Every structure is written in C-alpha cells, then in structure tokens.
C-alpha cells in the first residue's frame, strides 16, 4: 500500500477544464460535494470521472461502494483508461452482503451495523489520508438506518475527510428523506451538484448544475454532459448553431472548427446544412451551419429549435448585411446565448468589433470576436466564450 500523503494546499481538478478554469483549478481541498438527484440519473459517471482523475494525477482516491463487487467496480472503471491501480482504493461493502470473500484491505464486515460501516470508512481515511473520497451511495444508508444516526455519521465522515484535506463526493438520490433532512444535508456540504436525466425523442439527455453553498459562490446553469470513452464525463452541447447572412463564411467556420465536417451544398453555397463535431477543452459539441439566404429560412427554423447556443457569423466588411444578421438572432430568441463572429476581419475595410456591435445595435456586453475563418483565427476562442456563457460561468 502507498505511503500516506501530506495535506496539500490548492485545488482538486474536476477533470472538466472549463469548470476548473472557473473554479480556479478545481474544488478547494477539504471541501464536501453533494451529488444529488431526486430521480435516477447518471451521477455515478461524474463521481467515477472525479475518482479516476485523482488516481491518474497520482492522488490517493478512496471509493466506498455499497452496490458493486470490487471486480465489477474495477471492470467498470476500465472505461476511463489506464490509471495507477495502487492509487485507487476500494472500500468493499458488498462482499459481506453476498457472503463472498473480499480481496480488499478495507471491507465492511457487517452492513447491518451503521457504526461498523462508519468505523471502516473512518479508519481508511485516517490511514490513507486520501485526496479524494467517493461514497457511493448515501441512499443505501438512508434507506436502512434511522435518519438522525445517518446524519450523525455523515457529519463524522465529513469532519474526518476535511481534517486530511480530502475532497469528498457523497452520491445521494433521495428516495426517503423530507425537505427538512435535505436542508440539513445541503448545509453540511460546500458544493451542491444536482443531476437530471431526461429522455427526448428516445435519446437520454444528462445535465448537471453546480452551486457553491453560501452567498456569492459559483452557480452554473444546467450543463449538458455525456460520457466519452477513456476520458469520462465531458460537457456536451448537442446543438450549436452557426448562422448568419449569405456568404459570411459559416461553412468555413464549421469546417475549421470541426475535426470532421460534412456540407450539403450546391456550387459552394450551403443549401441544406453543414455539420461538424468539435472537441475542445473538455467540451464536445455538435455544430450545425445553416444556409444564409432568405429562401432557405424554413431550414434555418428547423435547426434553430432547441439550440444550446449560437455563433452568429457576419462579414465584417459588409455592414449592409447586419440587419439580416440581427433578424436571425431575433428568430432564435433572446434567451439563447450567442457570440458574434466579425469574420473576414483581415480584409481591407473590415469594421473593428466595437463598430460591428454598435452598427448591429447589440446589447452592452454582447461578445463580438474578430475572426478569420479561412485561417482558423479566433474561432476556438469564440466557441469557448460561448461554452462559458451556456454553462453560466462567464
């Protein structure tokens, strides 16, 4: 077994860069995360990503699993790629339930005893001094033991973890507790990470929202996410619209941003749509380019439904097209985040971004980025700004 770690100052990466940037590098050490939902979700993916990310960075991670045999848990984690196995320590709470031998050093012999469960977890924390701790899941205890006892042991684990500088994730789906107990649990947590899963058109959509407890802390919007093999949880935007007037450079924007792109066009003019998949700073996005001509407005309206955000491409040398661009924004709706790309900004006569904003009569603070799509200049920066706006961290 590895040597216990010293308490290290600083932050613990979430594994999602765009969040880490906003959190100053990740969650602060000695903090407690409540991974919560009141319906079934895929919150375990977030916890597993968080745990494996720790092991990959060489941090000791302790994972308390009430549901999976160690062999099953370790097998599930293969999806996240290679990580040092000695940095990932399981507390086995199920072998004794199934009356099978446990290969783990830390195993709960009697799951019918809350104190036995708590003592095993506390001993592992004290001996290993982990950097990350995941308890999967608290509803196992909430469904079996008196509420006051569970809350007491919950608090003890938080205190022990904080004392060694550990960031703790408590997974919890609420089957049995009332609002009063939920408030107590939230008050014991430093961050509330809420999850939801819904099914639309036969496709599961996952999203999460992070709230730093206390006033003035971080509060994100609902962040859509997906699972990516060998990486884990990735922020996922299923539809980013690239739109704008005719010949502004939309197809070039899609092709430059995307690793793979397709275009349905005629003589170089998009007549149906452009499509590309982008992977950038822990973000995965499907981008759709629309035709700019008015006669294709019906296609634009189809793609404008349920968009996460908009990259509005305008030709910075053609202010006469700005009115059309503004109209397209209005069609999408004012609540959808957007970034204006002042494209072809390298050409003579291109307006600077402040003049583009002024001539388009955009609200103050609307982001306008100078871009040269043909040279892939400014595009990724624009997409990152849009991502931060959608997530609500900008």
């Amino acid at each position, binding site marked *: 077994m590895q040597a216990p770690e010293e308490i290290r100052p600083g932050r613990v990466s979430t594994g999602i860069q765009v969040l880490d940037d906003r959190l100053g590098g990740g969650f602060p050490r000695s903090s407690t995360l409540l991974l919560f939902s009141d*319906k079934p979700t895929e919150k375990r993916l977030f916890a597993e990503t968080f745990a494996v990310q720790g092991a990959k960075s060489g941090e000791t991670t302790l994972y308390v699993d009430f*549901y999976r045999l160690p062999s099953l848990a370790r097998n599930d984690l293969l999806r996240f790629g290679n990580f040092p196995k000695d940095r990932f320590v399981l507390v086995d709470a199920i072998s004794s339930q199934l009356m099978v031998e446990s290969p783990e050093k830390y195993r709960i012999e009697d799951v019918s005893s809350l104190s036995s469960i708590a003592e095993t977890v506390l001993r592992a924390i004290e001996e290993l001094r982990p950097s990350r701790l995941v308890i999967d899941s608290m*509803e196992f205890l909430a469904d079996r033991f008196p509420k006051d006892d569970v809350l007491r042991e919950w608090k003890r684990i938080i205190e022990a973890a904080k004392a060694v500088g550990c960031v703790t994730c408590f997974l919890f789906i609420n089957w049995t507790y009332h609002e009063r107990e939920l408030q107590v649990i939230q008050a014991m947590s430093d961050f509330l990470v809420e999850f939801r*899963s*819904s099914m*639309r058109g036969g496709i599961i959509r996952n999203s999460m929202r992070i709230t730093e407890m206390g006033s003035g802390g971080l509060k994100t919007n609902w962040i859509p996410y997906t699972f990516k093999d060998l990486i884990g949880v990735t922020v996922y935007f299923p539809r980013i619209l690239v739109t704008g007037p005719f010949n502004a450079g939309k197809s070039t924007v899609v092709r430059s941003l995307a690793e793979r792109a397709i275009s349905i066009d005629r003589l170089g003019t998009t007549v149906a749509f452009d499509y590309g998949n982008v992977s950038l700073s822990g973000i995965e996005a499907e981008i759709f380019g629309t035709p700019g001509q008015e006669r294709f407005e019906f296609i634009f309206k189809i793609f404008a439904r349920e968009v996460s955000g908009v990259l509005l491409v305008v030709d910075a040398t053609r202010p006469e097209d700005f009115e059309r661009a503004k109209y397209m924004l209005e069609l999408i709706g004012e609540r959808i985040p957007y970034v204006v790309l002042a494209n072809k900004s390298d050409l003579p006569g291109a307006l600077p971004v402040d003049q583009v904003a002024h001539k388009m009569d955009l609200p103050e603070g609307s982001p306008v980025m100078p871009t040269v799509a043909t040279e892939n200049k400014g595009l990724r920066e624009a997409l990152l700004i849009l991502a931060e706006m959608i997530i609500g961290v900008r």
Partner: protein
Amino acid sequence: MDCYSATSSERPEPSPAKKTLLVSSFSNLEGIGMAMSKAAQELGTPVRIYFYTISALFLHNSTQAISKFFQIMTSRAKMNMGFILYAVQDGVHEPMTMNLLRSLVDGVVEMRFTETMEREVRIHHMRGFQVDSAWRSFVQMPGPTGGL
C-alpha cells in the same frame, strides 16, 4: 437487463446475439432505473418493458423507496419509453403495499391457480375500460409459437 448475476457473483458470458445490461445490485434502484432508460434508447422507442419482479426489490429496499422508484419509472415509461408491465407476487406483501402499487398503474391483471391446479386469469381493472372481472381459464400453449 440482468439484476441477478452481479449479486450472485456470476458473470454471464457476453453473447453477440443477446445484448445484456448488467445492474450491480437489487439495492441499486438508481442503476435499475438508468439501465431501463439505456435499454429503451438502444432498442429505439417505443418499447415494451417487462419488469420481473417488483417483489424481489422488497427484500433489499424499503417500501417507501420502492414506491417512489415505482412511481418515477412508471411515469418515465409512459412519457418516454412506451409500455411497462410489472409482475408482483401475491401474498408476500402487506395489503397496503399492494393497494399502493395497484393505485399507481393503469390496469391490474390477476392470475391464479385453482384448487385443481388449473390456471385462471382476470382483469381486475383497466383505466378507461369497462371490464368483466370474471375469472377465465387459460392454458399455456406448447411449441415455438407459444402463447396463452
């Protein structure tokens, strides 16, 4: 969806012809719920879901937890997945639990053995329909076409 193998520490051999989603434990209601959604996504909606059996969950979870799970999954199935049929063993649950489960579904079909071990079925109720709730005999047809 296999909720059994993992808890019996058996690992079924993956078969290319048969897609199986493994759930770690009967206690893992969230895992069961998400596996149902994933299966529906993979098969393409609408799907018919047969849940065999709700009774098994009562050995591992509280009635309160199962009731909420049952309510949420029934609603998800009806809204987004298609049709769901739950099997419940009679005689092992409190009458109040059975009444609660009955109240959360659109219809109840009851099956029983007579004293001479013949099979009988009846529709107890079905939302939106007037039903004749008399018991009817039925037999299980042998052969590849099967049926009742």
